[in-house]
Structure formats: structure tokens, C-alpha cells
């Protein structure tokens, strides 16, 4: 049994259970026989439980989901406007594949329904095309594979993909990656149109000049 009183820190550790079994026994047995330490222990315990109890206060918090997401999108648009002028001046959107706009809107919803075998072979095909074009894979999702290739290889890969019935989309700007708020590519944006307000533009590394980013859809 301890002959000295317990320190404040020891009492605090005891309450937190941050003591060994042996210390715990020792401290508790001291407390049970020492009114001074017992009082200290009770006081700190009460202090901690008072602090914990402020949680019991009912605070009505409005649902901030939609307002927060709106605010987020507003800030994105604001940021986009700052970058907009050089981006718009230089960007040009080229879309390949018949009926792309229709396909695009249904991709996210239906992409995962496609049979996995079919998907896998398509994935393999796409990867091999990208590899053959010395491309670099940037991102793979259930719906598409995004990669960066040299613009000189663009015609070749477009031809190969077309032969295999694969759709592809280009971000033709070498400095900016452009997508809308939902992360989908923008296919029908006309320069200066109001639709631009939904566009998200991310700067990509400037040493990637002469490269294009493409998405090949499965």
C-alpha cells in the first residue's frame, strides 16, 4: 500500500483506466482508506462527469447537407471563373462515338451491370491499346479508363478503338482537365455558354505538353 497520497495525475490516470492492474489495486486500496485522496478522486470524477454531461444539452442543428454542397459547388464555380479565361481560349472539345451524349448519361447507373467477363476482356483490350500507344493509365473506374497519351498517337488509338466498338472521349487541352460537377466529362460545352458554370477545371502538370487525356469507355 502507498504511504504517500496519490498525485493528481495518478488520480486522473486511474479514472481514465490508464494504469496497470497492480497500480489500480494499489490506488483503489489507498483511496478506500484515505479520506483526502478519496475526496480528490470524487472531485475530479464529478468534474469529468459534469464536462461529459454538457453533451446532454439538446441543440437543434439544422440539416446542413444541401446548403453545404451548394456552397461547395458555388466555390468551385468561383474558382473555375478565375481559371476560365486561359482555359476556354485554348480548350477544344472533341467527342467521338455515335450517340455519346446518351451513353454518357447512363454510364454511371448501368456501368456495373455489365457482365464482369465481358468487362474484363474489354478492360484488357483497352489497356493493351493504351499500352500500344505508349500511354500512361491515370485512372480506372467501372465505367472507363482514363489515360494520357501523346497527341501523335491519338489518330491511331482512335482508329483501333473504333474498330473494336469502343467509345472514347478526349480532353484536348494539355494543361487542364475539364469535367462537370458530377465528374462526367463535358461533351457539349460551347465556349462562353452558361453551361460553363457547371464545369470543373483542374490544372494538370505543365510538363505534360503535347499529351492528351482520353477516357475510353467499357
Amino acid at each position, binding site marked *: 500500500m502507498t504511504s504517500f497520497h496519490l498525485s493528481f495525475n495518478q488520480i486522473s490516470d486511474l479514472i481514465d483506466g490508464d494504469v496497470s492492474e497492480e497500480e489500480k489495486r494499489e490506488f483503489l486500496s489507498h483511496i478506500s482508506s484515505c479520506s483526502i485522496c478519496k475526496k480528490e478522486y470524487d472531485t475530479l470524477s464529478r468534474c469529468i462527469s459534469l464536462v461529459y454531461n454538457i453533451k446532454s444539452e439538446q441543440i437543434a*442543428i439544422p440539416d446542413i447537407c444541401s446548403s453545404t454542397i451548394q456552397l461547395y459547388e458555388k466555390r468551385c464555380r468561383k474558382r473555375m471563373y478565375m481559371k476560365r479565361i486561359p482555359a476556354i481560349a485554348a480548350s477544344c472539345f472533341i467527342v467521338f462515338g455515335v450517340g455519346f451524349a446518351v451513353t454518357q448519361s447512363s454510364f454511371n447507373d448501368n456501368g456495373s451491370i455489365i457482365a464482369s467477363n465481358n468487362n474484363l476482356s474489354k478492360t484488357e483490350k483497352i489497356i493493351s491499346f493504351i499500352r500500344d500507344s505508349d500511354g500512361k493509365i491515370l485512372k480506372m473506374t467501372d465505367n472507363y479508363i482514363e489515360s494520357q497519351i501523346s497527341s501523335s498517337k491519338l489518330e491511331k488509338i482512335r482508329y483501333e478503338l473504333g474498330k473494336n466498338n469502343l467509345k472514347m472521349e478526349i480532353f484536348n487541352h494539355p494543361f487542364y482537365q475539364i469535367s462537370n460537377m458530377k465528374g462526367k466529362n463535358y461533351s457539349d460545352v460551347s465556349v462562353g455558354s452558361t453551361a460553363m458554370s457547371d464545369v470543373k477545371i483542374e490544372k494538370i502538370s505543365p510538363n505534360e505538353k503535347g499529351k492528351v487525356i482520353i477516357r475510353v469507355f467499357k
Partner: protein
Amino acid sequence: MSKIDDIEIISRVLEGNTDAYSLIIKKYQDMVFRYVYYQFNDYDEALDITQDIFITVMEALPSFRQESKFSTWLYSIMVNHCKNYRKKKNRYSLVPLQSKKGDDEYEIQLEDSRENPEDRIITEDSLRIVKEEISKLPDDFREILTLRDIDGLSYNEISSILGINLSNVKVRIHRGREYLKNRLYARGLI
């Protein structure tokens, strides 16, 4: 309906599904709001800051590595956001609300004599006094006591959230508790 876990929601958000993010907000808005509210003791201010925190989290999401729990990561963004907010606020206010001192330099204030030491103060009053005393704590103490004694986080979690080692976590908890205990004693609450 099965409960979708954070990681799955996050990957959806990163896929471009911003709407999925509302699941994250719904799940954590109460926790974040309360933390902020206890730091600033102002409802409207806390609401604005809470929104800002969720926007910051959303923007930082691509940098989230799954080495820690999402909630721990969220906590550290939240704690830092509050710190920075306070710094900015103090910079622009003419009279600093609180002078910044190290852990060692706080004096235990006991100048208040106990008012009606015999009376047990009723619950509503005690809640108000505790909140008031928490809001008057030195920043470091308020921050760590919110994490430990209100949110019940472990020493390890606090260590990674605050970016300080375990022994410093313990030291700060000890000092903060001692400080607050003396304040609540002076107010006749304990």
C-alpha cells in the same frame, strides 16, 4: 438497408458523385457542430464554421489515405480548422481574446471565492456554468478536454489528431483537468 461504410461513400464521392457526400455530412454534422460549438460557444458562428469544415474535408478528400480511420482524419481537419479560425479571429480583433501561452505557463486561477458553497447548484445552472468555464479555458486545454472528456476519444486518437506524442497528450490532459477542476471548484460546482 445495410449501412454503407465511410470508405465506400468516399470512393463514390471521388468517383464524382457529389451527392454521396451528403451521407458523410449527415453522419458527422452533429459531432462536428458540437465540437465547434464548444470551442466558440456561439451557435451561428459554429454553424458557419461547421459548413466550412465540411467543404474543406470535401476538397481534401482526394488526399485521404486510408491509413487512419476516416473519423480521425475528419477530426484532425476539424481541429486545425478551428485553430486557424481562432488565429484569424484574434488577429483581427483589437483586444486578443486569449493570450497564447505554453502548457507550463498557465496559472491556476482561484481568485473567485466560492459563492454559496453549501448549495448544490441545480442542473440547468451547472450546465451553463460548465459551458462558460469550458469556453474560458486556454485553447489547448479546451481542445484536448473536448476530445477526451466530451467526445471520449482515446489517448492514441488524440495523439494523431493533434499531432503530439502520447506523453504530451497525457500531460495536457492532466493540466487541463486540474485547471478546470479548480475553476469548477471556485464556482461551487464540485
